[in-house]
């Protein structure tokens, strides 16, 4: 059996079982509308429908005998006694929705988490026909926020963005480790490399800032309306805004060994050396951060610049060696 052909038949079946119930109400439908509903191109949809009704022999009919299909230039009409309801949710479709609901239930505040739990029970009932799959456990699990607190903040910031209100956050950063209170006009949220970020206009800094969710100690929505440009594009803001955020004057220059070069290159642009090692320039905001960053790679990372950070790394290593418990 050619798996490619099986896949195609499977995809066609999925599409037809959505298209036919939408079509089979004895009135013409625009092919363009139907294609959007099914989520494919008009050409694919028309081909699926033609494949369904084309017979090559004069043998006994099958279900297609009872199907009448009429194409005009941009519309299609179909009559059928079968497939006038969509097929119920399949185990994998149910699994996907359950996964989303279970992930939400674990990150939302309790009253919303309860809604997610209720919705999950309903969806399972809508798929109650799956009698063959009584032993199914979850195939996937997911966590998109690091902690319950981040989940609460995420939910609150979403509300602030959609209701266009300002947010007040208590934020810990390298420049203010004790935390500072900021009023932010929230533009949008971004998820990258396992972290959520808020992008917005910070009143204190009087410019666009990017805030990491897991560094927010507290967050609340203010009554004041937020000033959010209508055409804000979070991704573009991030690209343009990065320069204003990392306004570091110093550069931390690190050489990573060939052994870990591949993993470093996964995350950032690198300058590859003849021996396979890579050199990366990081914006240097905080010497303590720099030392911790380099030490986590052990002998696989070496500070090249600046000399004062080199010296700090050496001193800390001496401390580790002297603290060694025998």
């Amino acid at each position: 059996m050619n798996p490619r052909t099986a896949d195609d038949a499977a995809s066609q079946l999925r599409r037809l079982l959505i298209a036919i119930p939408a079509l089979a109400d004895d009135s013409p439908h625009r092919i363009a509308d139907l294609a959007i509903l099914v989520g494919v191109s008009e050409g694919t949809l028309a081909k699926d429908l033609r494949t369904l009704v084309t017979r090559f022999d004069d043998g006994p009919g099958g279900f297609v005998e009872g199907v009448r299909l009429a194409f005009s230039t941009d519309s299609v009409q179909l009559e059928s006694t079968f497939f006038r309801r969509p097929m119920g949710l399949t185990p994998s479709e149910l699994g996907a929705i359950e996964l989303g609901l279970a992930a939400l239930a674990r990150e939302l505040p309790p009253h919303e988490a309860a809604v997610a739990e209720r919705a999950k029970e309903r969806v399972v009932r809508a798929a109650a026909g799956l009698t063959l799959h009584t032993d199914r456990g979850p195939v996937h699990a997911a966590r998109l926020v690091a902690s319950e607190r981040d989940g609460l903040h995420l939910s609150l910031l979403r509300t602030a963005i959609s209701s266009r209100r300002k947010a007040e956050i208590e934020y810990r950063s390298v420049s203010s480790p004790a935390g500072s209170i900021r009023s932010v006009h929230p533009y949008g949220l971004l998820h990258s490399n396992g972290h959520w970020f808020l992008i917005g206009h910070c009143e204190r800094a009087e410019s666009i800032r990017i805030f990491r969710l897991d560094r927010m100690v507290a967050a609340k929505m203010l009554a004041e309306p937020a000033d959010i440009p209508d055409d804000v594009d979070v991704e573009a803001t991030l690209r343009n805004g990065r320069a204003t955020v990392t306004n570091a004057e110093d550069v931390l220059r690190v050489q990573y060994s060939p052994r870990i070069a591949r993993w470093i290159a996964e995350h950032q642009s690198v300058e590859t050396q003849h021996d396979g090692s890579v050199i990366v320039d990081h914006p240097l905001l905080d010497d303590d951060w720099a030392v911790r960053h380099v030490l986590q790679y052990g002998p696989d990372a070496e500070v090249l610049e600046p000399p004062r950070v080199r010296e700090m790394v050496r001193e800390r290593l001496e401390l580790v060696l002297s603290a060694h418990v025998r």
Partner: protein
Amino acid sequence: MPSAKRPAKVQRWMDVIAAFLRFRFPISFEQLAAEVPAYADPDQADDARMRMFERDKDELRELGVPIETVAGEEGGFSSYRLKSRAFYLPYLMTADDGAAAAPPIRPKGPGYQDLPILSFEPDEIAMIARAATRVQHMQHAMLAADAATAVRKLAFDIPLAIDGDSAREVILQPSHASDHDVLELLDTAVRRRKLVDFDYRSMERDAHSRRGVQPYGLIFLSGIWYLVAHDVTANALRHFRVSRMSRVVINSAKAQSHDFEIPSDFDLWSHTLSRQAWEMGDADATHVSVRFDPSNRFAAAGAELGDADPEHSDCRRFVVRRPDAFVRWLLSFGGSAVPVAPSTIVDALHEVASNTVALYLAATQEHST
């Protein structure tokens, strides 16, 4: 008959499903063949036609069409059934339409009259839309497609759409995203409880090794997919980064039967709680006791990740599956986090610190000469 003249496979499948829906009781293969032209092909031998049906039945079940096999009495032939209630989507309603809502218009034809009606609260519908949108963010093409199809089906009756306001919420795809074909293979292996072999390159050893595992589930954590699996050789539960797997092969023997069972006390969701790098490893678990300097703010924060240590009251205890990652994490505290036990970790930290400081001493000597 030339294959080009055969009806398309999807047509045969539709014939099969329609034939089952026409009958309310289990039918034999011969009864089915009378309704499905492809199974009545006079040019084909009986057993070839039967084999074709067996394959179709397995594939349709795989696609979620719940065809039941009813065993024949006293060794007689099996019969088959597809209940319309199990095949069609029930009728769905929004709960706040209340008593004023008209009952659904049921089309004429077999199977529609006894479909149940289910009602959804408006907040539940909104939550389902959010859930489906969430799944689009999980960097898993098949899951995203399944969630989208589920929404399309439910949207026949209830107002539901995947949230399209993406300008305000962006998920950046990492450059080290997992291969979608690998994820799909692993999904299948988990569902069918089939053994899987793969090449795995781990950062610590920077080497490929062939692994054989019983796959229990997949977890998406901090933007990364992991396979949670029972490693057969190590006889222990392990986490493997999907993006570091290659040459993934599912055991093809006895495709329709399970190779193993997942222990009843296994809880996939509990694995989403452990998220430190040293907990997500493929080695045995070790308990490590560490003393932190509370006056150092980084060390104080690090201490919070551990548990109370029953043996050393001034220490925190960690469960470590990747000693190498844990030792490097300790090193990053620069002397403010000191391991006290076991000696393997104590010595490993000393060794890695010695090797690292050598870099700086050697270079300093170079500069001074």
